[in-house]
């Protein structure tokens, strides 16, 4: 039988330069991120804990303090940052240096799938029917890569990345951005949230990324008489802190006004200086800034 050489033994390239093309993609991400002081991944793994609302409000709170902030909506299937930051329907300028992000509430520069697609359109691809499982993940990673590398973010102090639910999505981000400057874990006091978010914490640590803090969302609500009451039994956020050794950086109480404001595209944190929820988010922004002191671009 003839002996065929292995791939590695065959030295010459075919002329496609596939490896160079892939390395070029990575180089473009690095080049773009070089002008960004800190990348902050807002992560949970669990859906419905309020990651996007926290991201939008944290972004505007940081911007209110004078920082240059970008917000990247990595949730391609359920995008919401465009709406929450008040830029839904705005066009994107095809600049020489890349696609210009849209400037939203508080001056935050935004890129989200909800800028690109029709309002009621699910994420779909121009592709043959069937066998989508073989390439759909690659396509989503490709879009995320282009959001990082091809958007002309400019000089930023912070780029906040709203990472969608599902621990696999965290892995996809880390494939492109192996070392975010900070990773915040968002959870609620619910035990089921703790259960899922603990998996995300482990996945991050196994990938060499240490989350910096926990954001406990919807920790309590204020009743009609003004009394603060817990929204969930137990305290999964504190349990998560004990389990992971991480500190709870913010406890954000449930506030219907926060939901209303973000639905209107005008995040709460820049308008409200009295509610406990706004105060918690502003305090979170201060904490993020302290942690990043001296790391700005």
């Amino acid at each position: 039988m003839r002996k065929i050489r292995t791939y590695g033994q065959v030295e010459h390239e075919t002329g496609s330069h596939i490896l160079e093309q892939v390395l070029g993609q990575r180089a473009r991400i690095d080049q773009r991120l070089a002008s960004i002081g800190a990348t902050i991944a807002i992560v949970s793994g669990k859906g419905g804990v309020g990651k996007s609302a926290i991201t939008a409000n944290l972004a505007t709170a940081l911007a209110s303090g004078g920082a240059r902030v970008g917000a990247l909506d990595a949730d391609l299937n359920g995008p919401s940052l465009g709406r929450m930051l008040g830029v839904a329907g705005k066009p994107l300028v095809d600049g020489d240096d890349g696609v210009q992000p849209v400037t939203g509430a508080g001056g935050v520069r935004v890129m989200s799938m909800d800028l690109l697609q029709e309002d009621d359109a699910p994420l779909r691809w121009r592709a043959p029917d069937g066998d989508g499982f073989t390439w759909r993940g690659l396509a989503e990673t490709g879009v995320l890569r282009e959001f990082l590398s091809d958007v002309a973010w400019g000089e930023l102090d912070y780029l906040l990345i709203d990472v969608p639910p599902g621990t696999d999505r965290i892995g996809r981000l880390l494939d492109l951005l192996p070392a975010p400057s900070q990773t915040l874990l968002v959870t609620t006091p619910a035990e089921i949230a703790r259960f899922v978010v603990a998996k995300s914490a482990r996945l991050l640590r196994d990938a060499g990324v240490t989350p910096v803090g926990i954001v406990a969302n919807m920790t309590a609500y204020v009743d009609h008489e003004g009394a603060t009451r817990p929204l969930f039994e137990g305290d999964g956020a504190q349990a998560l802190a004990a389990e992971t050794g991480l500190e709870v950086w913010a406890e954000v109480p449930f506030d219907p006004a926060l939901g209303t404001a973000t639905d209107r595209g005008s995040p709460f944190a820049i308008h409200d200086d009295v509610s406990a929820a706004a105060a918690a988010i502003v305090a979170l922004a201060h904490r993020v800034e302290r942690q990043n002191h001296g790391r700005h671009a």
Partner: protein
Amino acid sequence: MKFLCVECDRVMAFAERQIPGDGTLAAVFTCPGCNREMAMLTNPMETQLVSSLGVHIGGRTVPEQPMEMTRSSLQDTRADVFVEPDPAASPVTRVDWHPEAVDRLGRVPSFVRGMVKRIYTDWARENGVATMTPEVMDRARSELGLEGM
């Protein structure tokens, strides 16, 4: 992926790429030793797989364009998402577009129109062409190997 001419024990070199239809990507490779040619044909799923990676078999004739994969792959896009920058804010050398070229560009889907226009404009600048016409577009397309643009 490499193709080895077993007879000559040499790597076949990329020669030509075509998109003949049915979602097929055809890449022709030639053996530099015996000149034997072979065509690699991908089925639609394999073509999509390559496209999702954002790489071009046979290499690139123009640099990767901003959000190229997103623009070429996404369905149900909003009309006129991408707009051109204010010309006054762009200091680059001007390339005039003949009305017939504008008309032809207008037939390109709006989601990728800006990207396609930039590719043609860059080519015109690099080749000292001051006015973009359909003929110039044909030349650029042929030279750059831009299937379907």
